[in-house]
């Protein structure tokens, strides 16, 4: 656990009995005093307090967040898991039911390093009236929480409860390529020497509702 270490934070959600995971990466920017078991647990606490509410605000009340886990990619002992129960904040109703779990709102995340491709996030839990012909309904009440979520995805994790800023910076991580041409495999870096990251500067949601093939029944988990 040192400045510059990479942390992988995973939110585990369920929608219609299907698992919906989202993975976030953060780079530790400042060493700081805290009262948690390790820095991974501190990152979870900060994410839960500062970022997760913005994500829940764009999801329907049919999706349940049940676990947040975090691990230091460079130090296996710096890891934590927290069981939680949160539902999305957008209430479904007759005529405004939830869309299938493979329908999601996508976000593009541009960073400061052109050597790393753009990051993407896709959040399930859309409602019927949040979209119109497969395109985000911009005239309703949905774009304001989406814009808040854009800010959150590009924001650093501050410490909780001390409110120091910029402890963990959101990043996109370049995968390490291994193998031979035609049979390359990709993995996350496991040492600081392998690390290539792009610090996220802007997150912007896409107007077209995404269809996640991996979340379709029989394909996903």
């Amino acid at each position: 656990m040192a400045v510059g270490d990479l942390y992988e934070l995973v939110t585990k959600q369920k929608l219609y009995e299907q698992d919906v995971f989202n993975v976030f990466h953060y780079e530790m920017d400042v060493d700081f005093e805290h009262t948690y078991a390790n820095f991974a647990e501190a990152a979870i606490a900060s994410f839960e307090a500062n970022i997760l509410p913005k994500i829940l605000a764009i999801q329907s009340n049919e999706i349940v967040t049940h676990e947040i886990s975090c691990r230091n990619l460079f130090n296996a002992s710096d890891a934590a898991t927290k069981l939680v129960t949160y539902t999305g904040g957008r209430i479904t109703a007759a005529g405004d039911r939830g869309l299938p779990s493979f329908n999601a709102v996508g976000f593009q995340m541009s960073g400061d390093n052109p050597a790393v491709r753009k990051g993407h996030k896709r959040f399930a839990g859309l409602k019927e009236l949040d979209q119109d012909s497969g395109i985000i309904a911009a005239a309703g009440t949905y774009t304001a929480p989406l814009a808040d979520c854009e800010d959150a995805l590009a924001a650093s994790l501050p410490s909780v409860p001390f409110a120091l800023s910029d402890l963990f910076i959101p990043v996109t991580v370049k995968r390490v390529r291994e193998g031979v041409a035609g049979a390359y495999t990709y993995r996350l870096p496991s040492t600081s020497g392998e690390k290539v990251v792009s610090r996220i500067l802007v997150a912007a949601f896409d107007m077209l509702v995404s269809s996640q093939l991996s979340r379709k029944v029989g394909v996903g988990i």
Partner: protein
Amino acid sequence: MVMQRFLLKVRQLDTLSKRFGAERIDVSGKLKGLVDTYAPLAVEGDEELDHARERLFDSVEMFTGLHLHE
């Protein structure tokens, strides 16, 4: 940064309107909704909300040719 987020959606709606038809997806209504969302965020310094809204409308016209000014 706010302008970058806004213009990404303008470009996407421009492409989608060419594919599906501007009327079918109500591209004008969607762009006006986006202007209402992003104008308050685009206010910087002493710039007033109306000016921010006009600036976003100008950007829409430049990218799409659509006339959104009241």
